[in-house]
């Protein structure tokens, strides 16, 4: 898998959201996309997921321009999880997850047993097999997140785009979920690109961190390049101190 974002710009109704963003990604990476609110994280994910098309610049997946990929074929390789997925009607977890197989189905086809096997495998991968026949509205926030991650994984994507998957999770679930993402990268060889505000958690688990600022990509590097008080003050407007523990720097807010 290769993904190349080449000086991509985007605007919503004339309001610029991304300016000349460039980055390249390879297989088997866990990449955190960070930056303050409104810095363009979600927009970048949506452009890669083909929710929107860039206004200028281009995105290449496996060396081929996005607009040259047939939409459904592209969807078989790339899984995207929006920020607050919320089905309009009550659904069981297994039905939610198996709907992730949609790009593989023919126009009139129903899911076959093989699709349900994939869905169950994905639920297991997310430690959510026990949720299969439960309804979404009977689940905790953490359980729902895992079901929706399983839905993305049901298509065995090689690139996984997650928009703030850790938002509104309690600390133990953040840890669980971060480990899960790490695990998925290791076990499936996929690259996971996820937007997050939890810098310490991201630094602890990621191979690489991107920092967005006002629609541009400010930093693209290893976690230790980001986890520095001067960087944090400059890009996040946040006064922090670095505290060394377990051989790496953690950021603690300055009170």
């Amino acid at each position, binding site marked *: 898998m290769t993904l190349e974002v080449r000086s991509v710009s985007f605007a919503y*109704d004339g309001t610029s959201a991304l300016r000349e963003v460039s980055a390249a990604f390879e297989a088997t990476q866990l990449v955190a996309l960070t930056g303050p609110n409104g810095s363009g994280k979600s927009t970048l994910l*949506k452009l890669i*997921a*083909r*929710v929107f098309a860039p206004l200028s610049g281009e995105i290449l997946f496996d060396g081929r321009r996005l607009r040259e990929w*047939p*939409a*459904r*074929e*592209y*969807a078989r390789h*790339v*899984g*995207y999880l*929006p920020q607050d*997925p*919320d*089905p*309009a*009607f*009550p*659904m*069981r977890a*297994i*039905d939610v997850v198996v*709907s*992730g197989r*949609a*790009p593989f*189905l023919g*126009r*009139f*086809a*129903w*899911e076959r*047993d093989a699709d*349900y096997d994939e869905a169950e495998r994905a639920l297991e991968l997310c430690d959510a097999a026990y949720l*299969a*026949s439960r*309804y979404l*509205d009977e689940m905790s926030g953490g359980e729902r997140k895992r079901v929706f991650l399983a839905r993305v994984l049901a298509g065995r994507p090689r690139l996984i*785009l997650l928009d703030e998957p850790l938002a509104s999770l309690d600390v133990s679930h953040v840890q669980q979920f971060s480990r899960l993402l790490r695990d998925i990268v290791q076990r499936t060889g996929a690259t996971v690109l996820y937007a997050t505000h939890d810098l310490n958690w991201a630094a602890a688990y990621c191979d690489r961190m991107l920092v967005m600022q006002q629609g541009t990509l400010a930093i693209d590097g290893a976690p230790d390049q980001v986890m520095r008080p001067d960087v944090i003050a400059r890009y996040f407007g946040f006064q922090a101190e670095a505290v060394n523990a377990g051989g790496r720097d953690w950021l603690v807010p300055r009170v």
Partner: protein
Amino acid sequence: MGSIALTSAPARRARLAGPLLLLAAMLVVALVVAGTFGAARVSWSAAFAGDPTARAVLFHIRLPRALLAALVGATLAVAGATFQTLLRNPLADPFILGVSGGAAAGAAVSTALGLAGIPGLVPLVAFVGACGATAAVFLLARRREYTDPTRLLLSGLVLNALFSAVILIAFALSRESDLTAALRWMMGTLFGATWSDVILLASLFVITTVVLITIANDLRMLTFGEDDAKSRGVDVERVKRIGFATASIVTGAAVAVSGIIGFVGLLVPHLIRLVWHRDFRFLLPLSALGGATLLVLADTVSRVILPSAELPVGAFTAILGVPFFLSLLRRGR
């Protein structure tokens, strides 16, 4: 849900056949009931034996009326299921979106202009009104290639207010002799159904259903939101255009032949979902059968409940539907 195997693993693909057969059987029973009961005492055996009165009553009055009721019910329910799925809103139905209001306004204006006497004109204008209202609602909600579901619902609400005003003004200006027929139509009635109505609506209904089946797999993906559907390769704007247009046209035709019959489009898909919890591919055939059954029964009751008069069938869809709906709502999700 007897059709689903009871195994330790969670039920996988639900079988459509069981619910489909159940609802089809209910529809057949409803049609037989509709044919059997009525003001005139006639029997099926007499009709089949060649009795001319029985034949006239059953084959030229009750049967076309019952079949038209089934088709109108199926149409409204399918349109409701489609709008609800398209807009991700369980409250969407042809009435809230202004489709029926447009039809009613068209009918009221043609009545006020004294054109109600021309045969076939009121339904035609109603049909044009329904399609016009749909186009207006869709255009109002559209901004830069994108149709926002909330704006769509709000546009429908606002246009409905306008249509109510138009209807009131038109009625105020209408001749009293024209008003009775117009009012009867507005209340919703299947009185005077003919075989040509049945054939017209049946052909449109079949076309609509075929079109909706071709987009059903994409349409159900909208349940998870438009961004999500787009990321899964669904051409969202195309699905919305096709779904909205077909559901509106067939609603326009149903309203034109039957007048305003409320509640079916809202109620039936809800009931189906409450019982079976499945996606649009399930909802489409089951809503059609459920809507048909509901309206056939409601129409039969509205014909026979009072010996002296026929009551508006739209009132009975509500009276039959509300308690059932409330009990299901109380029982579960």
